[in-house]
């Protein structure tokens, strides 16, 4: 099991002939992911890595290769088109790495997806990985991961790698790790991923990594309180950020008391989560949490 990607994943990369797309598509493939196709309009008929066919359109790629996951690296002005093209072609899981997609574009993409079967992760996210199935669909460094029973979900990119690194260093493996991205309007939420981890028999504990800004951590806390019996460790970063300043991406704007790190940590603690006191203590907190369960 594990969630979202596994041995059955047939990966399609949109923008595969670009610099980033090409680099990361190869890394995914080298990690063990079944990369079946690439899409770059105008380059249909070519091959990359000597074997992966490139198509002009996602619908053609899906028809020819049975691709069921799409990973997007196209530049921001073309990202909405790429996401909608994959959904239109019936791809059930779409991950958009692209950073800097205009919020209006994302809003129309999300509106289009309402009621559709396609799940979108991102944009502006690192993607996801299931180490036990050797399935990596994203830009995370694969080698820091280790198969195991802890599910990781995070709004951040590099901070997710940090969390994984700390877990792996302590010998704590991961079932799947999902970076949901930090854009103000995006697809899959904390709650969506928590539902999946909660239902996944191969996930025994969960690490949630949040940030200041927005109310998504509070929604996660409410869901955990009501539904999750598995132990959850939670970190909120930005505890020391000065209020009212924009910290990198729009998701990290302090906009009222709910957006404060202290409020989020309070909500998560009340939901029964093990609150991680410092970014340096992710691994140790999870280790203690797992030990207390035994």
């Amino acid at each position, binding site marked *: 099991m594990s969630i979202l990607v596994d041995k059955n994943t047939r990966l399609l990369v949109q923008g595969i002939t670009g610099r980033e797309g090409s680099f990361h598509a190869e890394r995914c493939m080298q990690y063990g992911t079944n990369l079946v196709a690439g899409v770059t309009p105008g380059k249909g008929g070519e091959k990359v890595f000597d074997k992966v066919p490139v198509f002009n359109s996602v619908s053609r790629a899906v028809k020819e290769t049975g691709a069921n996951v799409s990973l997007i690296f196209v530049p921001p002005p073309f990202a909405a088109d790429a996401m909608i093209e994959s959904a239109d072609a019936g791809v059930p899981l779409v991950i958009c790495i692209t950073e800097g997609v205009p919020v209006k574009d994302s809003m129309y993409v999300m509106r289009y997806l309402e009621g559709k079967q396609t799940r979108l992760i991102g944009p502006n996210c690192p993607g996801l990985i299931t180490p036990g199935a050797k399935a990596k669909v994203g830009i995370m*460094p694969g080698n820091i991961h280790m198969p195991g029973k802890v599910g990781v979900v995070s709004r951040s*990119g590099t901070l*997710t*790698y940090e969390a994984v690194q700390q877990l792996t260093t302590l010998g704590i493996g991961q079932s799947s790790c999902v970076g949901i991205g930090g854009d103000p309007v995006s697809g899959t939420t904390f709650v969506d991923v928590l539902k999946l981890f909660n239902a996944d028999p191969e996930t025994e504990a969960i690490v949630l990594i949040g940030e200041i800004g927005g109310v998504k951590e509070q929604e996660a806390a409410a869901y955990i309180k009501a539904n999750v019996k598995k132990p959850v460790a939670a970190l909120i970063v930005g505890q*020391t950020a000065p209020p009212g300043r924009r910290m990198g991406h729009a998701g990290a704007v302090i906009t009222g008391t709910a957006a404060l790190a202290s409020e989020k940590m309070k909500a998560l603690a009340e939901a029964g989560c093990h609150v991680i006191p410092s970014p*340096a203590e992710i691994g140790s907190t999870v280790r203690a949490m797992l030990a207390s369960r035994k």
Partner: protein
Amino acid sequence: MKLHEYQAKKLLAGYGVPIPQGSVASTPAEATKAAEQLGGRAVVKAQVHAGGRGKAGGVKVVSSGAEAAEVAKRLIGSTLVTFQTGPQGAPVHQVLVEQTVDVARELYLSMTTDGGRRRPVIIASQAGGMEIEEVAKTHPDQIITEPIDPAIGLYPFQVRRVAEALNVTGEAARPFAMLLNACYNAYMEKDCSMIEINPLVITKDNKVLALDAKVTIDDDALYRHKAEAELRDKSQEDPLEVQASEHGIAYVKLDGDVGCMVNGAGLAMATMDIVKFAGAQPANFLDVGGGANEEKIAKAIELMLSDKSVTQVLVNIFGGILRCDVAARGLIAGIEAAGRQPRMVVRMLGTNVDEGKQILAGSGLKISLVNTLQEAATAIAAK
């Protein structure tokens, strides 16, 4: 990207939002002319990217061209300190000279994007002229929100609902509806992140008027709004932050002395947290972003080191899109360009990490290489 009041009003007026008569002045003479065109009596308003101008002395009613010149002379070239600017204040280069208006009622109206609903929302309140955050705290029941479905746009029944909640009736109802539609059109077509009209006034003769206006445009969408991108007034921003943003680097100056360079906003915040927990103070927030290249890293280091309050540096790079070898080369180039190298702790992990570490080791620079966040914190605190 923030617009000045006069720019915001011009943009909104282009969509049909009624605004007061007036013109912008860069000199006392222009202010005189502008006031005289309005018959002498006018309001002179300092143009800065910050609220709270009234209390800070940035808004004055004058009754003649001469008086307008006096106020303009005092304001233009000065620095206005409001509760939103911080102690350094914001420079005034222009004033807006506008007609005075017989106000019957002051309302609050704004549009922004609600990330949870994934839709634009109208936020409105009868408590116009007050900071909405203040109203939200003291009278949350007085604030109404109306989400707009982007698939179909703003519908009349929604406008009627907002008007009813604001008690806008009779003669004012129709111009209010037109104003709301104009705002929505502007919001969507110009990729706005926020439009705020505060106060939106109803005049004694039942006209609806945007007496003040703020517009923020989504930075990520500026590439398709060349005319608006030209309106950027960099003088309103920290020069280092401006330089950083020109290179696609997110940089926020803070009060401490530990320069932090990190890739990724979340890891950057985590790094700042670590520094503070270790008892030191970060000098900045600096995120080079996921897809940084060597030049960008170098520029980030150079910019950070140009801040003389930085006495030590913590670099925390976790390679994903950004490869560690690239980061290492950028780091070296940045130090060279800056011409100085304070004490430096580097923590580097992820894609091509060994190559990165080799490059740093071979550079001859004095750099403490650490492996974990905890070690980084300890190293910084050890100074």
